[in-house]
């Protein structure tokens, strides 16, 4: 395998471990087992787990941003639904992962989580600004500043994480309904259809 293939193998194996809900057990040894690449070889490229998860986060953020910007070019309610669903689902998973980490296991994910937070706070509002600027009729009031509202939407989406919702709604269906209704209220709608969490 060349370096690029090894690199992809490491990142893909790590991603799969995340996807399988194994965040608390992810280690270089587990990535080695999953990818079939020796731990020594992994360490020669990525000296720590934090380096691997940070690189994976960078890769995911590039995709997330590209998809978000593409959706932001669109018009209408359906595009809005797709854009919000796209972001909410991604960050719901990030937050579910975050709560599974302990003080010790957090060490291997600190940089990645910081990158996700940065994206959420600085890049996502730009995408919503782009979309809302193209779709001003979806704003709840014509007197609202689009830039601030874009930040407000991004901030609001962070409310829909498992820890917060679970406190009020114990079923997946209940959490989804509440999310649909509150997100809808941001745009003067009864609800905005969301994916299943």
């Amino acid at each position, binding site marked *: 395998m060349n370096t690029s293939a090894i690199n992809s193998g490491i990142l893909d194996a790590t991603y799969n471990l995340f996807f399988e809900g194994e965040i608390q057990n992810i280690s270089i040894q587990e990535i080695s087992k999953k990818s079939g690449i020796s731990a020594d070889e992994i360490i020669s490229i990525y000296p720590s787990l934090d380096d691997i998860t940070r690189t994976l986060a960078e890769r995911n953020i590039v995709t997330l941003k590209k998809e978000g910007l593409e959706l932001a070019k669109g018009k209408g309610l359906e595009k809005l639904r797709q854009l919000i669903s796209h972001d909410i689902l991604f960050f719901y998973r990030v937050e579910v992962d975050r709560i599974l980490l302990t003080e010790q296991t957090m060490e291997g994910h600190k940089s990645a989580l910081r990158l996700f937070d940065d994206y959420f*706070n600085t890049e996502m509002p730009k995408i919503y600004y782009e979309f809302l600027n193209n779709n001003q009729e979806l704003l*709840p009031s014509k*007197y*609202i500043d689009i*830039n601030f509202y874009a*930040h407000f939407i991004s*901030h609001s989406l962070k*409310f829909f994480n498992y820890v917060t919702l679970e406190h009020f709604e114990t079923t997946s269906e209940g959490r989804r309904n509440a999310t649909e209704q509150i997100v809808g*209220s941001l745009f003067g709608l009864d*609800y905005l259809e969301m994916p299943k969490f």
Partner: protein
Amino acid sequence: MPTSKSYKKKILETTHHIATTEGDVKSITFKKIAAVAGIKVKDIENEYSNMADVFYDTGCMHIGHHEARSKKILNLSGEYAMGTMIKHDLGLLIYYTRDSAKENLDPVTKRVLNFVKNYIETVMPEYYFKILIKSPTLIPNKNLNAKLYASFIIHSMFFYTKEEVISLEPNSKELTKITQKLIVSLFSGSKEEMKIEQD
């Protein structure tokens, strides 16, 4: 001559005044409070043995005043109560977030901030819940859990404490107005502004 009780009130009010105007609680001492309040250090020493207790009592007093006003706001009607309550609580959140963002907080400040945090997380949502129950038309969807929505309103208010948002409008009074306008837009639909009682 003021009684001991009135000195206590004066000490706490002066401490609150210095903390909110200067923002640096570490610099507050008995001497400073005495100078600003126009009383003797001895008068403070008769009431308190250390600054930690002064800070804690000041925090409790401030929250007590805040909650007393919240109770009065509950008597207003529907949208008017909601808009006024949001404005009222934003005033508290600004000091809470400013102080809790500081690094290397001393145990005394942490204790006071924990007290305020507890109020924000557990007591404040109850007031919004009561407004929503009293005026169910404010809930965007009749099937929506009112307690959850009350919690969402509190979350929304923290919007204006984000660095990225502050960089767009560094003037905190203007930013408070913008935040208030954004949140009330959830309730007032296409109307330009929700009526709000002035402090």
